[in-house]
């Protein structure tokens, strides 16, 4: 009996630590009308067009960041694992650098370099979005790098690549048909973290785009002026983020293709 008590105690403490603040936020969001529980705060949030627009913008940026990180890191890490193993410690160190550089330093660095010729990217909307995407990629790189690296270490990469080559496959086929499906779970893990980072990222988005374009600056702005709506938005954004992460996971599970025979 006692043996079961301790595991359950720790699990319960963990659940409380995680869910209690969310529960408290949810309860607080229902108290917009004095004396009763109501969804008035939620109604107001949905009435504000900027909520949907900013969340959609941040979701799009998050998905784009995940895609670009995959495009950049999977081939790079594959090359490192196959041909440049001695460089791995150096690249690992570089991948950790974003941890020690505050976002505010990063954004001011970007603005100093890219707000003036010869690379005046911030003069155009597309250029600014591109710069923001690059910033998101840098911030999420340590997580994506670690996940993909762990995925590649878990498979016999060299032999799988050589087996594919001996069967006539070129590099594109090897990446799409062999490497990616076998590190999919690792890539998904990195993607979830990347998604959460981009949705909650405040500094880069605020300094590059202003207050209401991306989701986190919008949330911060609402928080300054109102009491209950930010709590409602927090609960909604948590639910939506979990929803999207679950969709990503479901999509990720069904990427195998049939070449021959039944499955």
């Amino acid at each position, binding site marked *: 009996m006692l043996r079961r008590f301790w595991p359950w105690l720790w699990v319960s403490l963990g659940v409380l630590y995680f869910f209690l603040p969310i529960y408290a936020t949810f309860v607080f969001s229902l108290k917009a009308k004095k004396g009763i529980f109501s969804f008035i705060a939620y109604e107001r949030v949905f009435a504000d067009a900027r909520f949907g627009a900013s969340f959609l913008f941040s979701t799009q940026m998050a998905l784009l960041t995940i895609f670009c990180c995959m495009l950049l890191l999977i081939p790079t890490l594959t090359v490192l694992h196959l041909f440049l193993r001695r460089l791995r410690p150096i690249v690992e160190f570089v991948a950790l650098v974003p941890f020690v550089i505050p976002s505010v330093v990063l954004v001011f660095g970007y603005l100093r370099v890219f707000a003036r010729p010869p690379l005046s990217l911030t003069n155009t909307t597309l250029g600014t979005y591109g710069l923001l995407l690059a910033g998101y990629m840098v911030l999420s790189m340590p997580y994506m790098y670690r996940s993909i690296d762990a995925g590649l270490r878990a*498979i*016999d990469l060299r*032999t*799988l690549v*050589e*087996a*594919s*080559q*001996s*069967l*006539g*496959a*070129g590099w594109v*086929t090897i990446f799409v*048909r*062999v490497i990616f*499906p*076998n590190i*999919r779970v690792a890539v998904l893990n990195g993607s979830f973290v990347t998604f959460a980072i981009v949705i909650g990222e405040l500094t880069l988005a605020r300094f590059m785009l202003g207050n209401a374009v991306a989701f986190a600056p919008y949330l911060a702005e609402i928080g300054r002026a109102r009491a209950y709506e930010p709590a409602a938005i927090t609960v909604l954004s948590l639910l939506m983020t979990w929803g999207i992460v679950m969709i990503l996971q479901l999509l990720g599970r069904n990427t*195998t*293709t*049939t*070449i*021959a*025979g*039944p*499955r």
Partner: protein
Amino acid sequence: MSFLVLQGVRKQFGTTVAVAQFDLEIARGEFVSFLGPSGCGKTTTLRMVAGFEQLTAGNIILDGVDISATPPNKRNIGMVFQSYALFPNMTVADNIGFGLMVAGRPKAEIHARVGEMLDLIAMPEYTARYPYQLSGGQQQRVALARALALQPQVLLLDEPLSALDAQIRDNLRQEIREIQRRLGITTIYVTHDQQEAMALSDRIVVMSHGRVAQVGAPHEIYNAPRTRFVASFVGTLNILVATVIDAHHVRVGESVWQVAEAIVQPIGSSVECAVRPELLREATPELPNQLTGVVHDVVFLGATVRVTLLAQGQRVLVDLFNDATHAIPQTNTTMTVGCDPRTVLVLAE
């Protein structure tokens, strides 16, 4: 005309020479094994044929075409790996059909070919299984089918049985040989297991320190090894230190032995004479080469009995047939063994 030619092939990693001056001609449909200890360059040579390693020098010519610089995916050479290397995300059928899919063959053709290959390896009911659902032996059969599905010009096998247990290894060894004979595919097989090489091969290439030590049919390699290395690596060997008396006689301890093949070393020089344990037998008056010693150990192996004899300061192994009508030698008794002069090899270094 030779189908696959390796001309002066050399591979160097930095200052380390992995393969030095490797020359070999392989006929179409031939089964050749590269045999040697770890680090002798056999796998590196195989990988150069596959295209996974660039040649430092030399040429590889396949069916009259120099493929030395051809990338591995354009060589039409199938390969089976020690670790199976099946794609974990694909079913058995998908694994076998992968090469055909890459080649852009129609789905119906892929389906039919996969079926043929599954019949060939006697696993038609395993189509929808994933590699993790198969045993090691089954995985390696699928890997073999996958390599053969594209009908490659050459099949390379890199120690394919070394990760399997003894029983499965023996069965799969037979299957590989049967499939190779049935399809008539030119095959190179890398192994460090001499029995495997002898059981499978038309010819064996014994390698040592990146060089070819000897090339020949299994019986040639076993019965007439050219160097001490080949003699000691292939099979068990008794090596006796002797002194040359004349072109056909040596002194082994206090006995004079006859040697059938003329000795090239000068008279009075010290040489090494080699005799296989199974070629020594209990002495009879007509046997000219005799050696007397004390029985140190007797091991009963079923069909044979291995006797360890201490003779003239040397340990000599003798394999006797287990004849139920004869008593097994007892330890600490004296025993005289002898051999035919034709079975004595005078070894070069």
